[in-house]
């Protein structure tokens, strides 16, 4: 079991039951579990949606769309069944928050899904877990079985006459399936490629039915919002950015780990105080604020940066999935770019031309470039390719590859130039294997 970390600045809401054995249903109940759903049964769907809107909860998957708004788009009447879909296909490099929820507090996800079901009138929910999280599926399945046994799931949940069923499913190892429409394709047993939108999932989603699809962390927040009240939850964060966020601090820090901090928490403080500062007292070179798809930020850019969707957006990057990657001054940014693009090249589903060909081309160029066989025009080319992928791909994966690449080239052009003319990587160190041309 991963080591849990903590810091006094943390505001524990989603993580409040971490390390307390809440995977056990009795323990979960002792810790206030399934109270929120009972409250919702009493209050009714409109109230739930209003609470969600008032809480300022925004999608924790990365796009940051208002959860209450999303739920309100689902038509009241539908000829086809409606579905609740929990996206636990957490795959963004630097992101490691959802797996802690599945591990420590699986019932909060079930409870969130039930509440979502009550809010939109869905009787069926799916919890889709990343394929590589195979070790978590047993925990999740145990939780679902326990909930069924207690009558929290089934034809007549909590004796209320309402029906809600939950089915768990694991992926097959594709990052792309974290994209909501690709996830639905995958869940339907098809190739994991995204769908054309519109229609949006809220109208035509899984099996053609109106579907609410939310990130696992978003869903786990739902019962807490109901319990503590939307206003109290919203008050924790910044305007339009309600509540807290699980930040996964990784890279060159002294105390890496997942910390629950209020939205808008200062990034510099997050690195130097919560994360214990740059490892070995080294200098901070850059920081990736929200998972590998978000453009890198320079130390001077994070001085007064509050970590919420709006402030990070204004700073030219994105809050994304909350995966903060700290980079010290011994890191080669060309290599960092190469490792990042290699991931997206590997994960591109291949559906559309700019992403399929763009990521492949970028990887080839960067591989050669880092190995010392670059030419001056390569730097412009890399930028040209990324600029021409940006905003033109079928789904956001292309942007996820293009945005960080642009960040690296624009902000660390000098490091690229340092690799020119057959010079060895200036950051190569004894004993550290170097990437070579494959």
């Amino acid at each position, binding site marked *: 079991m991963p080591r849990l970390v903590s810091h006094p600045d943390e505001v524990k809401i989603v993580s409040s039951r971490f390390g307390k054995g809440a995977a056990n249903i009795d323990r979960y109940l002792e810790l206030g579990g399934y109270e929120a759903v009972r409250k919702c049964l009493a209050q009714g769907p409109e109230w739930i949606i209003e609470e969600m809107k008032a809480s300022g909860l925004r999608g924790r998957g990365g796009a940051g769309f208002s959860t209450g708004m999303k739920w309100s788009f689902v038509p009241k009447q539908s000829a086809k069944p409606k579905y609740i879909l929990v996206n636990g296909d957490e795959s963004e490099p630097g992101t490691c928050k959802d797996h802690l929820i599945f591990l420590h507090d699986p019932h909060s996800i079930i409870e969130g899904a039930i509440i979502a079901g009550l809010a939109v009138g869905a009787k069926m929910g799916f919890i889709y877990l990343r394929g590589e999280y195979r070790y978590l599926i047993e925990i999740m399945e145990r939780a679902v079985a326990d909930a069924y046994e207690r009558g929290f799931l089934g034809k007549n949940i909590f004796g209320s006459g309402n029906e809600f069923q939950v089915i768990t499913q694991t992926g097959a190892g*594709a990052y*792309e399936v974290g994209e909501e429409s690709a996830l639905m394709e995958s869940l339907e047993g098809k*190739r994991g490629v995204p769908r*054309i939108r519109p229609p949006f999932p809220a109208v035509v989603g899984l099996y053609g039915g109106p579907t609410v699809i939310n990130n696992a962390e978003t869903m786990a927040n739902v019962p807490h919002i109901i319990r503590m009240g939307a206003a109290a939850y919203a008050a924790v964060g910044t305007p339009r950015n309600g509540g807290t966020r699980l930040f996964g601090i990784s890279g060159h820090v002294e105390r890496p780990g997942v910390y629950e901090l209020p939205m808008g928490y200062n990034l510099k403080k997050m690195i130097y105080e919560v994360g214990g500062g740059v490892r070995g007292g080294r200098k901070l070179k850059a920081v990736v604020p929200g998972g590998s798809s978000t453009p890198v930020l320079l130390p001077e850019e994070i001085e007064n940066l509050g970590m919420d969707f709006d402030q990070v957006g204004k700073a030219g990057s994105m809050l994304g999935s909350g995966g903060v990657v700290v980079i010290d001054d011994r890191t080669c940014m060309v290599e960092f770019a190469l490792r990042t693009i290699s991931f997206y*090249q*590997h*994960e*591109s*589903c*291949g*559906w*559309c*031309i*700019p992403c*399929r*060909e*763009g*990521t*492949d*081309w970028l990887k*080839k*160029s960067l591989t*050669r470039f880092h190995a010392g066989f670059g*030419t001056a*025009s390569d730097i412009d*080319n890399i930028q*040209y*390719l990324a600029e*021409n*992928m940006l*905003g*033109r*791909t*079928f789904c956001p994966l292309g942007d996820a590859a293009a945005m960080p690449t642009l960040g690296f080239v624009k902000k660390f052009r000098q490091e690229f130039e340092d690799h020119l003319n057959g010079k060895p990587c200036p950051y190569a160190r004894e004993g550290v294997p170097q990437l070579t041309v494959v």
Partner: protein
Amino acid sequence: MADVTFIVDGKKLTAPAGTLLIDACRKAGIEIPAFCYYPGLSLQAACRMCLVRQEKVPKLQTACTTTVAEGQIFYTSTPEIEQARKAMIELLLGNHPLDCPVCDAGGECELQDMTFKYGAGESRMVDVKRHRDEQQWSPAVFYDRPRCILCYRCIRMCGEGMDVWALGIHNRGANSVIVPNDGHQLDCEQCGMCIDVCPVGALTSGTYRYKTRPWEMSHVSTVCTHCGDGCKVTLGVRSTAEGAEIVRADNRDKSGINGDFLCAKGRFSFDFVASADRLTEPLVRNAQGKLEPATWEHAIRVAARKLKEIRDARGGSAIGVIGSNRTTNEENYLLQKFARTVLTTNNIDHARSTDYAAFARALAGTEGKTASLRDIAAASAILLVGGNPTEEHPLLAWLLRTNVRLNRAKLYVANSQPIKLDRQAKATQRLPVGSYKDLAAFLVQGESDFSKALAAEESLVVIFGEEFRGDAAENLVAWGLKRGPNPDSVRFAYLGDYANSRGAADMGLFPDLLPGYVPVTAPGAFAEYANLPATPGKSMPQMLEAAAKGELGALLVVGADTVSRSSLDSAALKNTFVVVQDLFLTETAAVADVVLPAASLYEKSGTVTNTYGDIQMVRKAADRAGVKPDFEILVRLAGAMGVDVATLVPFSKRGTTGDLGQSRGAQAGEADRHAVWLEANGLEPKLSPFDPLAVFDEIARLVPGYTVDRINLFAGNDVHTEPRATPGFVPVGAIQSPSLVVPAHDTLFTSGTLGCYSTTLRQLEEHQSKELAKAAAD
């Protein structure tokens, strides 16, 4: 949907709400480039070539998935969009091999054309391109992975279009490849549609690849010779020492009712034309009883002399004539006219594959009751009884599938066995084997859900197979006609085998029926025919029986393998003088006294009528030294028999007046042997007696139902005809017996005699039987 107005590049456009922007633009003459968009197939939005700017929308939008609505404003050619297109092409070319000089698609490649118009002038790509070795998926289909741009047209065409679903994608990202779902080999209908829709040279054809450059071919639009559907086909031909060879068949111009559709036979099985077994010189049986090569003059002289001798000595009734299901209307018309007026016999028949005479009789006195293929393609409800279109009428199957898929037409299938089209059917009715004759009664009772659903359809097209013959066909038509007099209430189509089976029947290759199903016994029928015998002649079996008894002096067989088809002991013809016009030394030709090498349908002009009654122009594409079209052979035979050919082919001043511009005439002062010959014989110098169009006027004048829109026909369009039989015409029982109808039951990979001489078709059949065996073993 109501029309909406929107603005594209400053131009105000109007289109029904919900129209795809790409379609609306193209209709207005605004070009939007796209690879993955293909009309009629599902949307992909994968190639990103059709990106446009919509006002108030942050990102560029794909025109192929954007539907137009009132007041929208679009831009399709701003510097931003031009850059996006240019970059998309650059990205595509990143891994695309620039082997255009040897690529099959070079010169007609959508990627080349797009690069030319929208692409960058130079490449930024300096890294190594991905390579994968080429694969052969079947005798017909090859896949060259590096050239593939993954537009998924092939997958969709195979799945949605053909309902075969043989293709899929393996791997992901830049490693994605198109693969046969079955593994490394294609288990499919081998239609080659995947090759056809491929915008680049990734999917190539086993029969065409590396044969030529596209610009070295001439493209001739004609009609397929194989089944009775009559697909338009564009033949790519190239000159050779012996004439002109066919190197490719497709229908990329999407002309005709088949659009871009062709089946394996239409697309690949033209190679019989170039078979080494083709007869290219006449053969005459010598004194030793051996067939030996002869000149055309000699062979015609021998045949004509003997025919004349027998006619003069024993009368026309001692001569029999057997026609073909693949020769043109003009040739069939001429053949029966030759038989009736020159040989003076009604002993004329053909291998009947469908009971068209019964169909004509059933429809006698009605108008507007037959369904053209266009009617079928647009029908709201179709009843398909008997037959298996997927195997025997691939175009019909395609049109039915497409109509169901795109127009939500309702297909009702009644059959004694499951057929693939059941999958598109709204309702199916399994019939006991051999019970088709009772179908009409079953439908009349109207107690089953099936017949109730049919009765509820306002308009219905009834398509029936050759299982319906004689009374069964007539009863079914009678049942349908009771639905009402309105032309929309019911229309019929009757399925027959070959390219001109219908034409053979329409043109009177019957012992008792003149062209247009006019009984030979009808008073005043074809009064202008000199010497027309008034009594019905012998049917094919009767002729062969007479021959066996030594009562048939001569037999002229045009494009038919009677011996093989009738399982005849060839010795039965030993006392008969046999003249055969054919492409190959068939079993019948082998016992003939004179064999005249004939041109195939791809080597001549004329018209053919498909089984639905759609008449189409056939244009000469290939050429083979030594062979002659059947039309010319018949005219030469008649001429050599001393007939004034102008009476047979009215190409003189009284007849055809069309100037086909083939000769300026001898008056221009130049040496024109042909024109001089015409002049010397008092003939119209502008039109040759060997031109099948010379009898076209006569057909239009004399054959009921063939007065057709000639402008449309000559322009290459299909023109519908229907039998206009006189009500109550009485056939001669024994001669019109349903038992004389013997369907060929060709499959996707067989095509009668021609099919036997097509190497590709044999290979495809072998491949498919292997795949079947493999599937069975699994």
